């Protein structure tokens, strides 16, 4: 056990992953993200995510490795909506990794937070520990109505009942790119690997690459002053970096708030009260 805890302690030290070949990182520019959902469908297509059906959706059994969260701000007519795509943050100091009793989730040498389906015994502890709510448990063995199963991606395992799953940063694509690079005896070039979400993004809001390469597009994005990490205070050291939306604050916009001005703070409880009977189906609670 001590060897395991030593390993855990080791990679919680700052800079540990800089020693490795690749440190896959994603940057999402919220100023470019339009919330259209193309990435969500791309992920579903690439990673064999099940079609869970309306009944399961109502029960909060959504299985979307990537979701677009949306947040309202202000009140009519000075209302504003913001989008943020949330996926597994591939934390370097991942709370889920400490939780798993069988080490079915661990950190690999590329900075990826791995989930090993055949090792997982389904305790669901990791999902409880995850502050981003991006782990999904297979309560059922989902099936595809014939012939929809012919679409399934042969490069990705179809998960069955009793297994936890989550975003892999499209590791099958990473493996393929590394394989091609190996053929030519070189490193994976910047931009050579594109997870399905980044590839499909119609506004190029998602950038993916190796953080250890300081010239990579993602490293440049990380140096942007707008860059931040979601729930940074939890010290999880995520590998997903967000770039803050560059819109002017809502009430600094020209014309100002032309209604009674007491909006921002007062609006919060009122808006919450507007949806009192809303089913609080936290999508990721498994």
């Amino acid at each position, binding site marked *: 056990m001590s060897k395991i805890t030593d390993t855990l302690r080791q990679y919680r030290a700052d800079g540990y992953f800089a020693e490795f070949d690749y440190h896959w990182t994603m940057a999402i*520019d*919220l*100023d*470019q993200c*339009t*919330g*259209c*959902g*193309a990435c*969500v*469908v791309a992920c579903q*297509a690439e990673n064999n995510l099940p*079609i869970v059906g*309306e009944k399961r*959706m109502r029960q909060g059994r*959504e299985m*979307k490795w990537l*979701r*677009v*969260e*949306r*947040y*309202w*701000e202000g*009140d*009519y*007519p000075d*209302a504003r909506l*913001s*989008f943020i795509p949330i996926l597994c943050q591939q934390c370097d100091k991942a709370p889920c990794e400490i939780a798993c009793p069988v080490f079915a989730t661990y950190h690999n040498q590329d900075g990826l937070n791995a989930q090993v389906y055949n090792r997982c015994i389904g305790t669901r502890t990791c999902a409880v520990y995850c502050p981003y709510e991006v782990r999904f448990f297979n309560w059922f063995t989902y099936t595809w*109505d014939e*012939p*929809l199963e*012919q*679409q399934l*991606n042969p490069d990705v395992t179809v998960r069955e009942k009793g297994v936890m799953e989550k975003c892999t940063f499209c590791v099958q694509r990473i493996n393929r790119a590394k394989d091609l690079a190996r053929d030519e005896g070189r490193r994976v070039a910047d931009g050579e690997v594109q997870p*399905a979400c980044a590839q*499909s993004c*119609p*506004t*190029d809001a998602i950038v993916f690459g190796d953080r250890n390469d300081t010239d990579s597009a993602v490293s440049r994005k990380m140096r942007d002053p707008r860059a*931040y990490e979601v729930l940074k205070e939890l010290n999880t050291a995520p590998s997903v970096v967000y770039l803050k*939306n*560059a819109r002017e*604050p809502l009430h600094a*916009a*020209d*014309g100002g708030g*032309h209604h009674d001005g007491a909006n921002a703070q007062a609006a919060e409880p*009122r*808006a*919450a009260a*507007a949806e*009192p*009977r*809303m*089913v*609080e*189906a936290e*999508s990721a609670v498994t």
Partner: protein
Amino acid sequence: MVSRRDIFKYAAGGGVGVGVGLLLGEVNQRPLETLLSTHIPPEDFSPGIDTWYNTLCRMCPAGCGISVKVREGRAKKIEGNASHPVSRGGACALGQASLNALYNPDRLRSPMRADGEGGFIPASWDEAFDELSARLGALQAAGMGRRVWVLTGGALGSGEEALSRFSEALGANLLRLALDTTANEQAAAKAIYGFEGLPHYDIASADLVVSFGADFLGSWRSPIAYAKAYGEFRQGANGRRGHLAQIEPRMSLTGANADEWLPARPGTEGALALALAAEMLRRGRGGEDVANWGGLSGAMSLAGAAEQADIPLARVEALAERLAAAETPLVLGGGAAGAGTRGAAALSAVAALNRVLGAPGGTVRPNLGHAASYASVPDIEAFASQAASGNVSLVLLAGVDPAHDLPDSLGIRRALERAELVVSLDSFINDSASQADWVLATDSFLETWGDDISSPGAGSLTVTLQQPVQERLFDTLSITDIVLRLAARLGGAVAQALPHADAQAFTRAEWARVWQSLGLNGDFNERFRLAQQNGVWDAPLAEGMADTISPEVPPPPAAPGSEFAGGESEYPFVLHPFVTQGFREGQGANLPWIQELPDPLTSVVYGSWAEVNPATAEQLGLGMGDLVEIESPAGKLSVPVVVHPGVRPDVIAMPLGHGHRGNGRYAKGRGANAASLLAAQSDSATGALAWAATRVALKALGKRGRLTRTGGLSRTLGRQILGPGGEH
């Protein structure tokens, strides 16, 4: 102590155990699998390796180039074609989900004929062609081709060319149908820019975009091309961040991303645009080309327009300030703003504002003079009245579902009931096909040949080639194949007009014809082969071929407010139907990935809803998910409400594309069809359907509706999820 007899017993037990173990081993064996073996491998066949084919997405008329990943002969994933000038590697949710249509469990696997009891039974192609050619032949011989009506959509490819040649040779009527057409925008471009077709808008180089109702990030025209441009507009290489103002009564996806959202009263957008144009002229922004407009003295004052639009004057003045100061401004108009009874005038006012700002030639450029000419409301009504008087013998529905997508008030469903024979060419028993006598099962667009003129192209002709990425899954044919085979059977003028063997031959012949007509030289075969490789043919146009902007045009007409069906006292709310990227007018409803994709603004899945302002909801005692009855002069339906602040208090917004009567397990019976509420209103200038000009009344039904939403809280509650220092 242990007797011999016991020893025997133990041994027997062991023996039985071994036997059981052997049996279990036999039962537990890994099932034998067979390897993938081919007879003659298709070209490019390589097990375990992805093969990518470039082709065309046909889920909407934008004409994006896509790349399809194929493994072991099956399409697995759709991505944008990176070398395509429209999609540039991007793909929207609907395009990617079109795989669900290809592999849909409810897709038709052979031609179907009605059994007379509301059901359908499989039939053979020979039976279908025998009956259809006999009927058509008889009509043709009797000189009654006019009694045949061909109903199709608004794409521009050679498949549509085949259809129109077919109906021309037959003497039949052809109607191009869509709820949201480009007719008003074409009329405005003609009037104000002086060219035919649709303009190309250069969002990427604009520093200010003011959009009157055009949801260009969601569903308007070419969302992927515009989204790519928007990405550059926001965080482009030029280091400048553009400002986006969205003027619309209900916040669209574009409105949600805008820097400012101005909820104008429906139908007043034109007057506001014209007032802004007059203001710009007053501030001296207009050039020589608008000198003859007399300063647009007929326009309203800014204050008047602001009051009419119910937007604070300060905000309109601030917008005017921004417009006057902008270097490369761009004004867009579309969606509901161009779909009132004065839609064409409103869009002309928007174009006039562009013209005053000097956008034409810069951020607004002429496109190739090629845009679909859609059927107007009088055209559709003519069809309905012909059918009512028993003069319609045969209706050919070529890939359209007007019984769902268009308002009932236009009478299409009744017309289909009255027609003698209705033949639907579709992959599903959709709402219209369920009224048909024959449903001829069509290919997915991933299984056949064709092309489309992609919009928006600027200064060049962008034709995207559609080619099969895999063999047909079922016993199906493409619409073009069906038309060509019918033509061959009919003989005579029809066969002469369409002598080609199949869709592949026809597409190739069409390309050769266009190649010649453009006077291009070089090896056509080589060019076609390249197009098969790249998926696109982006031909620069010779000098003088592209349309140009007229140096001088007459001033725009006044832009009076839209007129609404239904009295204000009886129907206190304006219905704002909107098109979403996933569902469009109904095309996405049978795709499970689209049904499960949460709506970006409301995160609703599996079903439709009506959006209500919190103040209105409070007044009517409505909460999230409560069922309401919405009644218009044309119809009524019930639907759950979503309460959110992105909609005006005097407006009820509803997504289009839901509420199918058929169309397979994922679409059938989900949500309510907003189009069924629309009155048969039309634009006073173009006759285009005014789909945003109906008033409704709202009645709480006192019970919960079936509203499924995903996600958690709709406010950040100070968690700084959207970045440090609060929300933006």
